[in-house]
């Protein structure tokens, strides 16, 4: 038996089978692109996105305090004056992060406790405008503000939200492929006797498994390329670093999470129990690793802990390459953590793997 021929045949068959399953294709190929387009548009916007504040008109027909309005607008807010009943209605439906009430020096800012992050920004701008208005009323010159410069951490000019999100989705894709696609197939093959049948043939298990891993890596690289293309076309997000380094990191990450899939698969006897295990691993990893947003407001121990799990450092490396053009040498710690997990999961998965 020619191992190479068996291997390439299995890789080819694996790819063909994958193409025939629309659901799998959607989750790996379509979903990341859709997320990037959707969330990149909603949260991305332009760097100078307008910040809107609704001002409930105190009495119908009576204008709001024009001087305060001017100061608020100078502070950077876009003021929308709305009749009180309509403003109340929007407030109650939870749509407003903050709402300004009253007039003539007796104004009050109501802040939505559910939307504090947006509300805080509005509050600080409103306070500034309010202070400026008071100073003006007393005939004092408006105090100067701290100059603000808007930049991405990487310093390159297109640091939009889409640029932050894209590497996150690349990493998430590896996690989903490993924990869901790979793990479920592994458990099913064992549960339904597919592996057992293979075990009666002379095919070496390492050849069979290497082919499975290889066809999945190819799919991941193709889906990554697709996502990069969407990033360029829709948001102008370009890879600032080396493509060779990017591919190398994606291969390392695939090895890590595919091993994780096989390891988790070895813990479950049925697909039903596997679902629970998979979610137990997938959800915390996705939520704690900063796929969609940074976890800056989370408790420090939680952030530190997440940095030791495989996904967060992988995302740091991906963001480093794509957004900052960093070299791999500059991210030794992150690479060591991801590499350590890959090695550990690979050894565990290999030791625990059973045909039956």
């Amino acid at each position, binding site marked *: *038996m020619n191992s190479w021929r068996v291997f390439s*045949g*299995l890789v080819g068959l694996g790819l063909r*089978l994958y193409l*025939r399953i629309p659901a799998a294709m959607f989750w790996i190929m379509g979903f990341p692109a859709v997320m990037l387009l959707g969330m990149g548009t909603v949260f991305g916007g332009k760097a100078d996105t307008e910040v809107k504040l609704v001002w409930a008109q105190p009495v119908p027909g009576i204008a709001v305090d024009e001087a305060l309005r001017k100061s608020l607008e100078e502070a950077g807010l876009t003021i929308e004056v709305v009749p009180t009943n309509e403003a109340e209605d929007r407030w109650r439906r939870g749509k407003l992060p903050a709402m300004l009430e009253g007039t003539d020096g007796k104004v009050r800012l109501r802040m939505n406790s559910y939307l504090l992050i947006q509300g805080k920004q509005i509050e600080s701008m409103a306070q500034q405008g309010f202070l400026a208005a008071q100073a003006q009323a007393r005939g004092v010159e408006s105090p100067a503000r701290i100059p603000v410069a808007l930049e991405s951490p990487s310093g390159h000019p297109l640091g939009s939200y889409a640029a932050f999100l894209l590497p996150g989705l690349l990493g998430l894709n590896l996690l989903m492929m490993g924990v869901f696609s790979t793990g479920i197939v592994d458990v099913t093959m064992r549960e339904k006797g*597919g592996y*057992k049948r293979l*075990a*009666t043939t*002379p095919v070496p298990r390492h050849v069979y498994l290497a082919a499975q891993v290889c066809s999945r890596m190819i799919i991941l690289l193709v889906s990554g390329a697709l996502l990069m293309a969407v990033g360029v076309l829709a948001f102008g997000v370009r890879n600032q670093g080396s493509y060779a380094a990017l591919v190398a990191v994606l291969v390392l990450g695939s090895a890590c999470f595919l091993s994780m899939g096989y390891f988790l698969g070895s813990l479950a006897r049925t697909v039903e129990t596997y679902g629970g295990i998979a979610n137990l691993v997938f959800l915390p990893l996705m939520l704690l690793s900063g796929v969609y947003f940074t976890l800056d407001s989370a408790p420090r121990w939680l952030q530190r802990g997440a940095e030791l799990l495989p996904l967060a450092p992988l995302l740091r490396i991906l963001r480093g390459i794509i957004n900052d053009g960093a070299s791999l040498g500059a991210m030794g710690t992150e690479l060591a953590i991801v590499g350590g997990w890959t090695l550990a999961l690979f050894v565990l998965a290999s030791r625990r793997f059973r045909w039956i």
Partner: protein
Amino acid sequence: MQNLAVEARGLQKRFRDVEAVRGLDLEVVRGEVFGLLGPNGAGKTTTLEMLEGLQPPDAGEIRILGRDWRTQGTEIRGRIGVQFQSTQLDDKVKVREALEMFASFYPRSRTPSDLLRLVQLEDKAEAFQSRLSGGQRQRLALALALVNDPELVFLDEPTTGLDPQARQGLWDIVRRLQSEGRTVLLTTHYMEEAEVLCDRVGIMDHGRILELGSPRDLVAGLQQPSHAEIEFLGEPPDPAPLAALLGRSVDVKSPCWVIPLSDPRHDLQQLLNGIERLDVPMRQLHVRRASLEDVFLQRTGRSLRD
């Protein structure tokens, strides 16, 4: 020694608190169709899996085609073919692709079209595995077992769940395998199948082989190798008078009386005389040869299907 396809001595296998196989000896001669027979849970599948190299026995020795699993596993795998009760391949794999994949595992293999013709699935070559009927899947599994032109074929309950026509078709294939000089080791719980197909059978219960021999010899060795059935219209009457007259037991299996015959020449004469004397209102009389079912019943006191 050389002409043994399967040689097993003192096989034992235990799963936690279940002793699945307890001291099993088995020899299957090359070119023979051998059947392992027994109720569910008798240990047939575990025995087969040990012989197929899937489970190491806790104790005992196995030689397959004169080779040892522990040192010559790859060589054995190249020479055997295995069909399981149910093998779930990938749903989206096509019949031809499955055959090609398995063929690639062996240095020498039969072509897909050749195998498809053998199991009569030529028109399903491009069908997805998930679109096959139960019988078609079984035939695909058989084709996969024959990909490497094996010397020894293991078939685990090959006809379970098949309709009578499909079963006939499978029997034809098994006979053909034998005529090509292959050895077949199959398990079944259909007595009829074992009697029709197998040169020898081993009747298993509770992890042991109780009886071993050709179906004809096993049946002939029974205390009552045949029995008479007296059929009535509706419920049979109380058989006590006839039993007293004959001096032997008469079972009632509605709508029949069943009378075991140890010596048909003499017993049948006596029976007919008794019927005439008592003026039994019978409808029909059948004389039946006992089956492997009766062999199992006599050895265990239980019916196979319980």
